[in-house]
């Protein structure tokens, strides 16, 4: 494949990643699942961007598309661009089209990923050390065996593992979940990546370890000046970590903005629902709020707003075509008719009751 096929240019050179109308589909026997359908957002350099949404909304698929780790042949990037600002080679590439050989040089080296399940993410038959070494050796073929070990042990210390030398020779089953997640983070950071994708890094861990891991990620981000794409359904985590937030629902972005926009002025009824369903300390509630209904069937998505059937504020126009993303302020965008320019008061409210 000639280079011209995948070399492109960034819209804004201060971004590390630009998702541009990404469409990732799964072609199954039951039909085409549009897991991600027209998602566009940017990841600025050195910033943390939080991607939130409930299970199955396409947040993990978005990140796997960026790593080109979709389960083929069913899962495929069907359209759109995934522009990556490859600083090391002073060019921008379209990850959606890049040949897999080139992608292997980027994975683990420039874009690293931390997965959700530390218990199963590490290979059970290799030692911790050899798994970190492998990553370093892969991307730095000239480095000597001895230096690799020194570097790996250093990474283990960096993620707060005491007794790093001993852990280096341990097998994954000898460590606890929190330790393993630290190892996974050490592995992800071992090649000084530009971007770290953290796919629910704390979901499988208990709360005290969660806080430690988040502290660790935040500290490391400043140390190596990387960007983080944080995927989570935990709004608390996002509030603590993210500069920008993207809210996804059924494969599309329903609202995006700065953390301040999303947490203090949420506009989309789904985002508002998510905020309400978050437990708050020192507040007596009879029952925690939950958004009524279910996510629509991803194979047969309705022609109107996907959230309409669960929305408490839906109006007549909501039965029309899927609402476009509306720029509310320079940073805040929302995809909802309630915030569209025409005066909404002339529309008759038809929702309001739980369906």
């Amino acid at each position, binding site marked *: 494949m000639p280079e011209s096929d995948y070399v492109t240019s960034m819209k804004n050179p201060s971004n590390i990643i630009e998702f541009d109308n990404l469409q990732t589909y799964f072609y199954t026997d039951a039909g085409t699942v549009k897991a991600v359908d027209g998602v566009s957002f940017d990841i600025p350099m050195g910033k943390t961007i939080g991607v939130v949404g409930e299970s199955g909304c396409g947040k993990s698929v978005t990140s796997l598309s960026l790593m080109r*780790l979709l389960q083929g042949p069913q899962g495929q990037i069907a359209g759109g661009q995934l522009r990556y600002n490859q600083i090391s080679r002073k060019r921008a590439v379209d990850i959606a089209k890049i040949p897999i050989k080139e992608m*292997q040089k980027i994975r683990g080296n420039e874009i690293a990923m931390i*997965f959700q399940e530390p218990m*199963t*993410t*590490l*290979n059970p*038959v290799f030692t911790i050390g050899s798994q970190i070494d492998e990553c370093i050796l892969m991307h730095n073929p000239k480095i000597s065996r001895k230096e690799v070990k020194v570097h790996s042990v250093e990474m283990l210390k960096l993620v707060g593992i005491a007794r790093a030398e001993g852990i280096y020779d341990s097998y994954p*089953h000898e460590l606890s979940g929190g330790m393993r997640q630290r190892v996974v983070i050490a592995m992800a950071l071992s090649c000084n990546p530009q971007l770290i994708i953290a796919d629910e890094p704390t979901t499988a861990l208990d709360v005290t370890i969660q806080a430690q891991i988040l502290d660790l990620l935040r500290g490391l981000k400043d140390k190596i000046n990387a960007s983080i794409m944080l995927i989570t359904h935990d709004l608390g985590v996002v509030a603590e970590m993210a500069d920008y937030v993207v809210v996804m629902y059924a494969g599309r972005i329903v609202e995006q903005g700065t953390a301040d926009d999303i947490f203090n002025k949420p506009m989309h009824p789904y985002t508002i629902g998510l905020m309400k369903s978050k437990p708050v300390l020192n507040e007596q509630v009879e029952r925690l709020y939950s958004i009524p209904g279910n996510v629509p069937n991803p194979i047969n998505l309705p022609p109107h707003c996907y959230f309409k059937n669960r929305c408490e504020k839906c109006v007549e126009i909501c039965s029309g075509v899927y609402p476009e993303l509306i720029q509310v302020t320079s940073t805040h965008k929302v995809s909802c008719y309630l915030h569209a320019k025409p005066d909404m008061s002339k529309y008759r409210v038809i929702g309001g009751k739980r369906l």
Partner: protein
Amino acid sequence: MRQYIVRRLFISIIVLFGVSVMLYLLGRLTPGDYVTSITAGNPNITVEMQERMREVYGLDKGIVEGYLNWLWDALRGDFGLSFLYQKPVTEIIMRYVPITFTLAFSAMVFEILLAIPFGIIAARKQYSRTDYFIVAVALVGISLPSFFFAAILKRIFAIGLGVLPLSGMVNARAGYTGWARIADIGKHLVLPVTVFVVTGVGGLLRYVRTNMLEVLNADYVRTARAKGVPEYKVIGKHAFRNTLIPIVTMVGNMIPGLFSGAVITEGIFSLEGLGNIAIKAVQSGDIPYLMGFNMFIAVLTIIGTLISDILYAVVDPRVRYS
């Protein structure tokens, strides 16, 4: 580890004792003993003569006494004289084991060499034409009865094309020596080994494929890819080392099966191996040989499982015996 092996060997003795009791019972309870079978159709034999012959062969004693006698001798390494061959059972086994072993071992090596790569290829290309083809061929192999398949091979290669010998172990007329003799034996083994491999490879192949499929979907394989590991190494190192764990267990258990599976194939190809003799022994009621042969298989089974358990600990760091 050593303690574990010692304990396992100790348990093995108890298992072997139980096996010998069962085998002796089955052997003696089979209707028609050795004397009946060799005197059948001879009108000059009287009942008294039969009784005298039973005394000679030790078949006049009860099952319990007969077993205890056998056990006492066996414990001292004496497995008795084969009724049919009138030679010590151990001598017969030692003499014919190389043939069976060559057959079984070469078949196993080929089975492993075919099953692992093709199983991996099939798993890598799940639901593709390649996958369907490999799985279909494997299934045909499993379903083919060995005697039928052997007959077809003989018809095509020995009778039709005349490129391979029909049966036997060596060309008796040529009287080869040295390398020529080995080449001749090799030629004679081609068809029996083919029968073994074709009918036996399917099970292992499907096992490899299933395990590989499971491993390929594992999170750590995705992690390896996410690290930037090239695909051939993802399969060859990260996935393969994990598929090896169940395969090793299965291969250890295959060893005794190969020896007992030789019974039919050796018979068809008139190979003078342990299996072929075992058929004759069953037909005539040669208790000492049957006991010796079956105990040999039992020991192999125990060694096979022990080896696979030890290898299991070698390939999987999570398994530690204490």
